[in-house]
């Protein structure tokens, strides 16, 4: 699996081509669904690095997503700093936060880690919800500025947003693949199997766990900055809530944790399903869309516990 085969290259290229051409052919709502899918695909890929490879099931990714969204927006609104710089600044800040919280949590495993990550994200949310300087509970309304790539603002069309987030996802995938095939990736897997064994093999468990969390936080934060520039309004209740963290875990799990492309597939199933079912059924107020969503999550965990990507990949391989 270390080398990309020619066949995989062809399939990958075809998917990429579809993703480039598709947004040109569909109405704005479809483009919105593509953008949202890619945002969550990116977060899923980022989650996968710490959850799928290093075995730390984080239910607190919303904190990093939110810090990314807030950092760039705050810098833009108060110091007129370009969101592109804010993107990097947010990533660095998120990584530092991740390290600061990851270090004391370095002994936590399994469900303890999961709950600790929820606790961390909730504290961050409550803190932002009361922090006057960043708008507290009222949130930040990012002003609509001149349309340009340098401003990270596009008013007349969603296409540039589509391609920017597509580039982000490709970047995240590259990072993920690099990590998974490098020495670091093997260390992560060793840690996931057993802290003790990894320790005996000479892996610095605490340090490598921190690396995983920091990389993951950086990528998630990038997605957060993108969200802020795209939606142009953020408040703690919409970018830092548990629902976002859970959505990210679901995307990764349903697609297939522990595989590079799994989260992308997971997002491609989950997000369009929830968006289109809401658009088609939501107006009735019966909640059918959410009922279907719940059933789907349950069914996939039961019948495809390793994610649908495993099954898909199997099909591709068999049909040589």
């Amino acid at each position, binding site marked *: 699996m270390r080398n990309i085969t020619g066949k995989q290259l062809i399939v990958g290229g075809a998917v990429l081509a579809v993703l480039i051409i598709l947004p040109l052919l569909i109405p704005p709502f479809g483009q919105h669904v593509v953008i949202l899918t890619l945002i969550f695909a990116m977060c899923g890929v980022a989650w996968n690095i710490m959850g799928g490879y290093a075995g730390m099931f984080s239910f607190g990714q919303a904190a990093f997503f939110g810090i990314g969204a807030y950092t760039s927006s705050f810098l833009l609104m108060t110091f007129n700093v370009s969101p592109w710089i804010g993107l990097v600044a947010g990533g660095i800040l998120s990584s530092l936060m991740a390290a600061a919280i990851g270090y004391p949590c370095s002994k936590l495993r399994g469900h303890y880690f999961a709950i600790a990550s929820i606790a961390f994200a909730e*504290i961050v949310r409550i803190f932002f919800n009361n922090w006057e300087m960043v708008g507290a509970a009222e949130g930040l309304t990012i002003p609509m500025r001149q349309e340009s790539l340098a401003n990270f603002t596009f008013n007349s069309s969603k296409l540039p947003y589509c391609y920017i987030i597509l580039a982000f996802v490709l970047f995240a995938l590259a990072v993920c693949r690099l990590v998974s095939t490098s020495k670091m990736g093997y260390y992560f897997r060793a840690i996931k199997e057993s802290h003790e064994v990894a320790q005996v093999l000479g892996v610095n468990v605490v340090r490598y766990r921190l690396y995983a969390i920091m990389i993951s936080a950086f990528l998630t934060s990038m997605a957060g900055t993108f969200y802020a520039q795209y939606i142009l309004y953020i408040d703690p209740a919409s970018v830092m809530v548990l629902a976002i963290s859970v959505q990210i875990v679901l995307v990764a799990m349903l697609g297939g944790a522990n595989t590079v492309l799994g989260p992308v597939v997971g997002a491609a199933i989950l997000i369009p399903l929830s968006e289109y079912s809401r658009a088609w059924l939501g107006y009735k107020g019966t909640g059918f869309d959410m009922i279907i969503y719940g059933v789907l999550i349950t069914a996939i965990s039961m019948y495809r516990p390793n994610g649908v990507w495993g099954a898909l990949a199997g099909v591709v391989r068999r049909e040589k």
Partner: protein
Amino acid sequence: MQILAQQLVDGVLIGLVYSLLAIGLTLIWGVMNVLNFAHGEFLMIGMFLSYWLYTLAGVDPLFSIPLNAVALFLLGMFIYRFIISKVMTGPPLAQLVVTFGVSIFLANFAAFIWTPNYRFIGHTIFSGTWHLSGIILSVPKVISSVGSILTSGAVFWFLRHTRTGKAILAVEMDREAALIMGINTERINSLSFGIGSALVGVAGALLATHYYIYPFVGGTFGLICFCIVALGGFGSIEGAFIAGIIVGVVQTVGGYLFDPAYKVAIVFLMYLITVWIRPQGLRG
């Protein structure tokens, strides 16, 4: 000072309800290593059962406790048999996620069949307040706490003094060894899931006496319950009981002394500090 004492009392009262909720959750976790994210929705169903019994048949919520317990026991067994048991052998992540699906389904299905409206049981046989040297005790809250203590005590006794209870504890301690000793672990799993759910059913009836009821009420209690279970140490009944009270008091008194806006944050911070010092929780 008087108000502070009042906060302390209120904290203990709500804390005891948390305890009962957390014991159900921790039992399930301890025995089968499953974190039930649908716990809050089970509570919601329990509350609705009490509500309908009250509205349609005039049954006081307190008398609906046995029926709630049985109904939720069956629901728990059902969900274990047809959903949870299917993922028990799968990867841990699937076990974590499956109950999310169940929780989303239950809340929205309840909204569909019972409408998303808010409901409240106005008058139960116990209402009003007692005054004890300046401290005001809300009678329904006191009844709920007493009910919670009695139920927790019963669970305690059951686990320590009955064959089935001991078998549950044995599985919790060491599943393989229990299997070798001839314990039917599959049966124990579904029993524990049933009992854990039944406890939530009881809590639902108790809360229904003084709490609003609507399909998404589970979310109000869900998150705090996880924190309590983890604080007490996953699988530890005593731990969950004590942690419930601690969380209730910290949230109420902390909110009063500092700022209510941060009261939930204080609880989570306390949890993080605790697991930093003791990664296995208080009694884990």
